Structure formats: structure tokens, C-alpha cells
């Protein structure tokens, strides 16, 4: 059987698994980020009166939505994948299969769920007249491709290292909490002053800026930054694959 079909089967199982046993089913994928969005809106817009500086700056909620959703897809894909190999120890010990499939399926599931939610909510905000350019949705969706590659690269590293060092899956959510606030998701890069260039080290910063530019025409990302981001995604994926391949023959010894 081809690896692609096997991946598809694991992907379908993962998808089914995420919503199996919950009454709302697939709706939950939309409900969860909506609740998160409601909490953040309350805290930042209502309580802290946060706003994006600038004369023709977008509203805070569309600003938050356009970058937060891709971030959730990205971070969740990696944190979930970290245990993808470990959770399937029973299977790995009994059947010989290309183990990358387990990681790819987990990352793909997170992206599928949250990309769907993203499209739905962006369209909804556009219809509500929140200043969203629907034409930017197509390139925005295309931007998920390098983001997926980047996530998969990190996920392959996390999943294989987790087999050896079990602390990783505990540490990752903390790390991602840190990275979440070290990216221009809740604020604009211009608000950070001199720290803005440190922000650029966060691999997600480019994507946050790019989504803001494409959907809200807020700020700009040049071709040079796009080229760097694509290169980074390719390198991370390559390294991730190499690390996974190197450690793969030893999984059984440590599981």
C-alpha cells in the first residue's frame, strides 16, 4: 500500500477520533477557538481597551482572528504530534510501518480542522463588514502550505525526541505559550519598539504579518521575507525528516 493511502487512513482515523464521543462532533473544532476568541476579546478589547495604533488600523478583533487561527493550527499540530509516536507504541511494536505517517496524519488533522474554522470565520467577519478583504483569502490559504511544512518539520523532531526524553511533551505547551506572545498576534510589531527585530526571530512572526497584510492590508511583507520564510520552512522540514530518520530505528528500544 502506498504511504499516501496509509497516511490518509490515519488522517481519517485521527479526525474521527478527535470528535468521536463528543456530542457536538465537528462543530467543536469551531466552538473551541470561538470561545478562546471571546475570552481574548473580553480581556483585551473590553477590559484593557487594546487597539492597534494607526489612523486606518484594523479593528482589534479582525486583527486577532487573522493571525490567531493559523497560530492555533501551527502550535496544536506540533504539541499534538509530540506524542504521536509514543501513543502508538503498541502498534509500532507489532506492525512494521513507515512511522512518519503517524506524525503527518496528526499535523494534517490539526491543519484541516483549523483551516476550515479559519475560512468560516474570516468569511463571517467579511460579511459582518469588519474590513476584511475576501480576495486575500486565496493567497492566505496558500500561505498555509509553508506553514504546514514548518509545523511538520518541528513535529517530526518533537515526535522522535519525545520517545527519548519524555519531558518534551510537558515543556512544549509552555514553550508555545511563550512563542504565542512573542509573535505579533495580540499586538502589532510596531508597538514593541526596539524589540521588534527580536520578534523577527520567531518563525511565526512572518506568518502573522503576512496574514495581516493579505486579509487586512495592514503592514507589508516583501518578497525577500517570503523567500526567507520559504527557505526556513524547507530547511526545518528537511532537518526534521533527517532527525526522524536517524532516530526511527531506535524507537522500539526506548518506547
Amino acid at each position, binding site marked *: *500500500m502506498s504511504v499516501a493511502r496509509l497516511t490518509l487512513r490515519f488522517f481519517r482515523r485521527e479526525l474521527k*477520533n478527535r470528535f468521536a464521543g463528543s456530542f457536538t462532533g465537528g462543530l467543536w473544532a469551531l466552538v473551541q477557538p470561538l470561545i478562546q476568541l471571546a475570552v481574548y476579546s473580553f480581556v483585551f478589547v473590553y477590559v484593557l481597551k487594546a487597539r492597534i495604533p494607526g489612523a486606518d488600523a484594523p479593528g482589534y478583533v479582525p486583527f486577532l482572528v487573522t493571525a490567531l487561527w493559523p497560530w492555533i493550527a501551527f502550535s496544536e499540530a506540533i504539541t499534538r504530534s509530540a506524542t504521536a509516536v509514543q501513543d502508538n507504541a503498541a502498534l509500532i511494536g507489532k506492525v512494521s510501518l513507515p512511522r512518519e505517517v503517524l506524525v503527518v496524519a496528526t499535523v494534517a488533522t490539526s491543519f484541516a480542522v483549523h483551516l476550515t474554522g479559519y475560512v468560516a470565520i474570516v468569511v463571517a467577519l467579511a460579511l459582518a463588514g469588519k474590513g476584511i478583504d475576501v480576495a486575500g483569502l486565496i493567497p492566505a490559504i496558500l500561505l498555509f502550505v509553508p506553514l504546514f511544512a514548518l509545523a511538520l518539520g518541528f513535529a517530526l523532531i518533537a515526535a522522535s525526541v519525545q520517545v527519548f526524553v519524555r519531558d518534551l511533551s510537558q515543556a512544549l505547551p509552555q514553550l508555545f505559550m511563550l512563542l504565542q506572545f512573542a509573535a505579533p498576534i495580540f499586538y502589532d510589531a510596531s508597538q514593541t519598539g526596539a524589540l521588534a527585530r527580536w520578534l523577527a526571530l520567531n518563525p511565526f512572526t512572518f506568518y502573522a504579518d503576512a496574514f495581516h497584510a493579505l486579509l487586512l492590508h495592514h503592514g507589508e511583507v516583501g518578497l525577500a521575507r517570503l523567500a526567507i520564510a520559504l527557505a526556513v520552512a524547507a530547511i526545518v522540514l528537511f532537518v526534521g525528516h533527517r532527525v526522524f530518520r536517524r532516530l526511527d530505528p531506535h524507537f522500539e528500544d526506548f518506547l
Partner: protein
Amino acid sequence: MSDVLIAARGLGKAYPKVHRNSDRLRSLGRLLVGARDRDRISVLRDVNLDVVRGESLGLVGENGAGKSTLLKLITGVLTPTTGTVEVRGTIGALLELGAGFHPEYTGRDNIAMSAALYGLDGARLRERIPEIIEFADIGDYIDEPVKHYSSGMVVRLGFAVVASLRPDILVTDEVLAVGDESFQKKCVRWIEDYLAEGGTLLLVSHSMYHVQKLCKHACWLRGGEIAMSGDVFDVTQAYLAYHERKTTAQLESAELSRSGHEFAVTDITLNGVDSAQPLMIEHGADLRVAVGLRSRDGRVPSLAIGLVRADGTPVYGVSSDMDGHVLRPAGPGEYRGEIEFPGLSLLPGSYAIRVHSMDPEGVRLFDTVERGLVVRGASREFGLVRLAHRWIGEGAPPPAADADA
């Protein structure tokens, strides 16, 4: 006929020692830079194995001998530390009582996943599912999550999936031990059909009955190395004898030191051979035991001879005074006794001959000397001895039956 499906050369597997968590970190570092781990526990060493199409090979050995590791290396679940293993053809494997089922999913979902992992998907899978469910025969449980299954049911389902795939090579690890009597019979019948159609089998079992019934050849793994391989009867008998000796060795050391030597055994020859090594004889051959005895006070001792299985189970015992036989003198204070068992009917296996010197009345036992005896032969009869028997009322012979002796 030289269609080699599995070829293992110098195959070895070592596991890293991971007592502490820092070991795991160190291993990770070494593996990432491409170095080997130093502290390793070797579980399998230098195994060379060829399995040709149509072969049925049983793997026997104690717990921890490396049987499961070998199977895992062959199926590709484990990566060998040294050597290579080449496999041609499809493998259907049931390792360690399961087929890698996911506990949260129903039996039906797991069948689909499991079959997909073996390359069966889409329409061909849908065709087979009723057949698999029928073979597993677990009733309504098929739509329950596998976590609610008994271990027997898991094996039933696993076997049913593998059976439906009809792989070139069937690998089973202690599968028959878990199923109930009727499922065991079903599996055995299925495997026999599979072998008759040219299938290839690798079987791990602690049941010598199953190994002898299903396999032509056997391979005995001891401490990670092949101790013996060859005809299934030779290997399993040697393996059982090894176990029986192991059990008695533990019991015996306690018994040694209590022989007041008023009447002592000086020598034994078995079929004319005076050696501490076990005597090998063919099933049905004659056995002659000659014993030299010494008497301190000049009275004529009596001689008792016992045959026990290697684990100590008595088979037969007799003494000269019971039979009213008086030993022949062979010098001052020396006596000789000799006894013959014509056409010894012990079944193939490992036994011991115990020779005891006793007082003239045959009441007190003074000295005991033991010699090993290995009876060889190919027989699937049960028990210790062949009892004289005949079958009554002959029917018409089935078309292709062999005439059995």
C-alpha cells in the same frame, strides 16, 4: 525448491541500558551525532537462518531467549544492531498476542486499519470483512471497542485478519496459547491447510505438541544464540531434556550427602559403556545395565534399579530381592548384578537410570548412582512408555493416507 524467503546473516540485537533518565538523554545525543550506544544488553547474537518457501519452522527456547526479538527483526518491527535480514514476500505477523489493535476502536474499525497496514484496502477489504468476522467468531463484540475484549478475543480477531490475508510467510508468537480449545483447533486446522497449500510458517510456542504437530523443523534459541536446529523431533526432545535436567539439578544437590556406605555402588555400565555421559539409544532397542557393588561385612547386597524421567517422575523400579535373584560374587566383598530390558518401550525423551545398593533384605537403601539415558526416535505418542495395543475393526483407508507403523 531453493526459494529462500527469509535470509538472516549474523543477525544480532542489543538494547541500550536505560536505568536512569539521564541515560535516555545521553543515548539521544549519541544517536543524533551518529554514534553507537556503548552500554548495551545483547539479546540476540549472530543468528544465521534460512527459511525457504513451504518451510515450517518452530522456534523454541526459554523466556528471554530471544525468540520474540528474532521474529520482530524478521517482520521489520525492530532494526537489527548487527547483521542483516532479507525477506522476500508478504509477512502476516501476530506478535506478542496482538495485531497492534487500538483499544479505543471497535473490532470492525481495527480490522480495517489492520488490513490496511498489510496493504489490503478499498473494495478488496470490504469483500473480506464478513469472512474475517466469521472466522473470529466473537459475536456482537465486533462492534465493541477492543479494550472490552478478553485476551482470547483479541487473538481471535488478530488471527482472523492475518488468516484472511493469506501471506507468503505467517509469523505467530504464542498465539495458540491464548485461544480456547475450539479456537486452537480451528487455528491448527487453518495452519495445516495453509501449509498444505505451500505456505511458510514461523511459529513460536512453548507447547511442544503444537510445534511438533505443525513444524517440520525447529530451532532452539538459548541465551540469544541458536543452540540447535534441525528436525523438529530431535530439537524439541533435546530442549525438553534440557528443561527436565534443569529442574532436577535444583532438587538434587540437597539429597547428595546421605549414604552410609555399608553397601556401595562401585561402577555402572550401560550397554557395555562406562561413561558419565548419558547413553543414547533408539526407541525399542535393548538396554542392559551392569552394576558393580561392594559389601563391607561380606553379606550379599541386593540391587534396585529404577527408571525415572529426567524430571524425577518414576517410570519403573525393580530390585533383585523382589525377583528372588541373588547377585553373583566377583571377588572379596565384590558383587555384580546385571539386568536386561529387551525392546525398551520408553517413548523418546530424556530419562535417568538410578541404581541403588540395598541391604540383603531389600529394606534399607545405602547408595545411589544415576546415569542419563536418552531415547531417540520420531514419535508423537504421549506419555512415558508405549503400551502394547492394537486397533480393532478396520475401515476403508482414506485416499491419500500414509500407512503408519
